[in-house]
């Protein structure tokens, strides 16, 4: 089979999977879902690692390392901030009421 066709097949099927898995999301979860999807495209990090690791000149290396830093920020920061958001949804146990200013009465 033609290699381009294989790639095209992967691409088209991924579109359907991507559309299908989020089709029933409630608006409550839009923000965490967006943030989680945002983290996933941070996987460009591995692309950055590959180009930085094959750099033959200093210029390419420097740009590759910058891309690596940016990719890591996207990937790690994205997952961590999504987790923080979702933590708040689940932390509905009896936490002690927070002290507030007008609470003196």
């Amino acid at each position, binding site marked *: 089979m033609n290699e381009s066709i294989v*790639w095209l097949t992967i*691409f088209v099927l*991924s579109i359907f999977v*991507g559309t299908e*898995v*989020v089709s*029933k*999301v409630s*608006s409550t*979860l*839009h*923000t*965490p*879902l*967006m*943030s*989680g*999807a*945002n*983290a*996933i*495209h941070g*996987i*460009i990090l*591995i692309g*950055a*690692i*590959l*180009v*930085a*690791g*094959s*750099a033959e000149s200093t210029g390419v290396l420097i740009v590759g390392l910058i*891309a*690596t*830093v940016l*990719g*890591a*920020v*996207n*990937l*790690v*920061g*994205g997952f*961590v*901030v999504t*987790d*923080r958001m*979702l933590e*708040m*949804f689940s*932390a*509905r146990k009896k*936490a002690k*009421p*927070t002290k*507030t*200013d*007008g*609470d003196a009465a």
Partner: protein
Amino acid sequence: MTTTPVWVQLTYLAAAVCFILALKGLSGPKTARRGNQLGAVGAAVATVVVFFQKDLDHLPLIIAAIVAGTVLGVVGAYKVQMTQMPQLVALFNGVGGGAAALVALLELDEILSHGAEVSTVIMIATVFTIFVGTVSFAGSMITFSKLQELMTTRPVVFAGLPVAFGGSIVASLVVAVFGVNDPSLFLGIVLALLGLVVGVLLVLPVGGADVPIVISLLNAFTGLSVAAGGYVLSNTLLVVAGTLVGASGTMLTIAMAKGMGRSVTNTLFGALKGGSTLGAGVASDRPVKSVSPEDVGIMLAYANRVIIVPGYGLAVAQAQHTLRELVEVLQSRDIEVDYAIHPVAGRMPGHMNVLLAEAQVPYEQLKEMNDINSEFKNADVALVVGANDVVNPAARTTPSAPIYGMPILNADEARQVVFMKRSMRPGFAGIENELLFDPKTTLLFGDAKETMGKVLNAVKSL
């Protein structure tokens, strides 16, 4: 060219499955956190395995770069206040797009230096990654500046904008076509610069309340550029992950736009058509009825049904906890109280749910717009805290208003409406709210947290 070992490819496949399950999990409230963690595991495994894909040089530097990015990301994610989260997502999205564009530029350099014949498809994917990645980067940075209020949140439109935007798109296309036919690093860099211009011009005319939709759209853009970049690098994981985000991000964008009663094109280009700058964005001096916290306390304490409309201003003032306490006191007096959550309350869809969840407001009290809107007419008091646009009747009545057509909460149907506001400044969308001047409306000015505390004390003392 060395080939990727089979076990590495299989691990990439496993990581891709993790990402699919992550998105699936994130779509349901019970599975969301597990889903996100699964995605993180997949990403971590892939990041380790990439070092076995082929022999890489400069390992200490690369690992240092990963550590630096990780530290920056984690610190950013932990330091950010929940109110500022949308701009952080925009920022993360932008750097991802930037990374994809840089990777494609470097790969272009690599391809050229080998001097071998390059397939047209590879070149198309390369210029696509460069262009879309830089658009996403620049657009996200403007979005970030708008949300962080480093620049005006209102649509920025100047006379030549449509021409400049169209011109830069055409120029980009021309450069892209030349770049595909006769690849050179120079053309790649020119295209990247044009991408930056297009990104800026794309987002500048988008007004305040529409910014979240743009974040989601740019998120999908970055996904697609990562997918194209993955094709250039012959990396299946990047192709699958990027495409997943591109597709789900597009769906999400459409869903959000629908929640605001707008189309995506209207969001992006509405301001260009002009006539969308109703209201000057300054405080009005028309007379309003202002009352004291004690009056509001009495109003609430003797009501039977109260509906709270929380907005971004509530969270900015950090008044959620006091509000929750007030609601608890009212409920102990057998008053029926609910929170009416507009789909785009806050700065992003679902943002308000996150902010109230942070204050441990029980999930069951948060009512979605469609479920609560018919109840307003039975409500004695609608208490609007730090919200404005989501109860602005101009969305129903004034076709020239930027928010026209957006479904709103029917707070104006309640017997009495109380606005807790910092000042008469208009909301994020910059439009005057007619409801403020309605005879049944009273206003309580001041810092939401402070005045909320006073109202709470007033209710308690009754």
